[in-house]
């Protein structure tokens, strides 16, 4: 799949949408407008966008507690997302899930997950469905560096490998599992080395390079679709914001954060587009305006939406 100029501009716009969406969420978290917690994807936008651009609408993803970016990249409706964050009836989960549980199974988003690593075996299950129904689809399974040390990571990658499941495992290595640095939690420096023990390819990419991520996921997805099995891709990136609302960030320096901000995946891609003439200042401003408008519309929609009635409290515990 070769990306044309329009695709490239759309990629930029989607990354920017995630950034602006998350900035609005940060504002709402600070104000208490969002009453729960939230884990922001700012700084890691290239991973979700590059990866999801490489798959089709009918393909699946499993996401994480830091899942807003994956949702948007998989084509979620911003109105329903913002409504869910505000706990409204019109949200993806009718206000019952919140930030960590946004899902839209019909469009292939099998859900964010409040448990680190919790989505990894679920991705394997979707892979089983694809294989048994001979669907030629693929599952992108997103998780962070913290999940790589969970038992289910081991169980799932091994199962995916022995059964040649069409799952692409994408580790977003943002260097910290909450406050625990990867250098404390891993003896190995390159997490993709883990793939070797499952007999699957392991790839390490610059997680701030959207096109490089796209390229690797295209390769892995095509391999998966052809029945040649799973791939483990590690994208090195950085989360600009704290782990969640309550993070005092005692485990890292301001200098380190500043250094990573200089490597902003969006600015970097914007420069790439400008340098090649795929984007000019005028179009960039227009895109910025459209993105801001879409976020504002989502906020308006969510704020105008009703909270769920208490009558719904005990509904949907069991499916009929």
């Amino acid at each position, binding site marked *: 799949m070769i990306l044309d100029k329009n695709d490239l501009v759309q990629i930029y716009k989607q990354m920017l949408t995630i950034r602006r969406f998350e900035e609005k969420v940060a504002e709402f978290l600070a104000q208490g407008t969002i009453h729960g917690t939230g884990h922001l994807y700012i700084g890691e936008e290239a991973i979700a966008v590059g990866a999801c651009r490489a798959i089709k609408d009918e393909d699946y993803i499993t996401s994480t507690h830091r899942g807003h970016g994956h949702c948007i990249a998989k084509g979620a409706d911003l109105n329903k997302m913002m409504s869910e964050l505000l706990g409204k009836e019109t949200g993806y989960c009718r206000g019952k*899930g919140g930030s960590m549980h946004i899902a839209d199974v019909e469009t292939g988003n099998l859900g964010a997950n409040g448990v680190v690593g919790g989505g990894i075996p679920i991705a394997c299950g979707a892979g089983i469905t*694809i294989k048994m129904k001979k669907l030629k689809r693929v599952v992108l399974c997103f998780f962070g560096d913290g999940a790589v040390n969970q038992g289910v990571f081991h169980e799932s990658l091994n199962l995916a490998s022995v059964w040649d499941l069409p799952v692409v495992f994408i580790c977003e290595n943002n260097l910290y599992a909450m406050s625990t640095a990867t250098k404390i939690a891993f003896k190995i420096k390159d997490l993709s080395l883990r793939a070797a023990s499952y007999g699957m390819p392991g790839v390490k990419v610059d997680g701030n390079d959207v096109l490089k991520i796209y390229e690797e996921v295209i390769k892995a997805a095509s391999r998966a679709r052809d029945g040649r099995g799973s791939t483990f891709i590690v994208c090195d990136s950085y989360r600009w914001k704290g782990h969640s609302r309550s993070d005092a960030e005692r485990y890292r320096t301001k200098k380190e954060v500043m250094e990573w901000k200089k490597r902003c995946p969006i600015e970097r891609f914007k420069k790439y587009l400008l340098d090649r003439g795929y984007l000019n200042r005028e179009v960039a401003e227009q895109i910025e305006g459209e993105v801001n408008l879409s976020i504002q519309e989502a906020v308006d929609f969510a704020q105008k939406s009703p909270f769920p009635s208490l009558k719904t409290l005990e509904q949907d515990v069991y499916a009929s």
Partner: protein
Amino acid sequence: MPTVELTYREALRRALREEMVRDENVYMMGEDIAIYGGAFGVSLGLLEEFGQERIKDTPLSESVIVGAALGSALTGMRPVAEIMFMDFITIGMDQLINQAAKIHYMYGGKACVPMVLRTPGGSGTGAAAQHSQSLEGLLCHIPGLKVVMPSSPYDALGLLKSSIRDNNPVVFVEHKLLYSQKGLVPEKEYLVPLGKSEVKREGTDLTLVALSVMVVRALKAADKLAQEGISVEIIDPRTLVPLDSEAIINSVKKTHRLLIVHEACKRGGFGAEILSQIEESDAFDYLDVPIRRLAGSDIPIPYSPGLEKGAVPQEDDIVEAVRELVG
């Protein structure tokens, strides 16, 4: 209606077979279920009939067995996963409790997880503390899970078929001591609905609610007690979630006495739930004596035969408890 005699094991196998023939989305996965036929032989022969694509031997990985069952259920399959011993569900507990049980609600009712987790519980095989537990109480505490515990071949067959057709995660608790138990089942296809108890023996002096293998022991105890002129009504809830408490309430109103018998540890066991529901119902006013629970000791299941037997209610214990309540 023509019937055929089957063991509990054969009844389960027939249910699996019928459902796999009926619906191509039904498949099985678990440790040693294919060539080996399952640790207790339930799936023996199914590999030959359905092939390895639908009878999947997994690596020894309970978390991904439960999680992958859930992921495939979420995307259109109807998996029947086997966990070799009920004790090992603890290894897959995140996927069962935090994931499978919650998805339908957490996603606002917009997705469902039609999966069955079959697992044998119970003691009596000399397998000691890590292979003998009855952990259904833990599961009944979790909204979103259904919990089924058949005590006869007839119920095992009909309930497993209903569980497979149900759109929720169902934990189907078998009992090791029941696998070779024989019983008559109709030759024709039938279902036993979830959430419907059965009166296994009618009586007038006392209502005895028993779970799983305790139903078999209670029936034997009731025969003995009948010779003494004590008439025991035995109710098998068959599914703990949803629980058919109405049937128990009605029976208690008739007999005025209630004894609850289960193998699981008494503390926090499902008997406490049944007891409370009856206490909170209008059947309370009909009680002549306080409700009594006869349950497993609050200990890990010990190895030595005498100790193992002593840890859980036996036929004589049931006889004794009934005499005390009626006498």
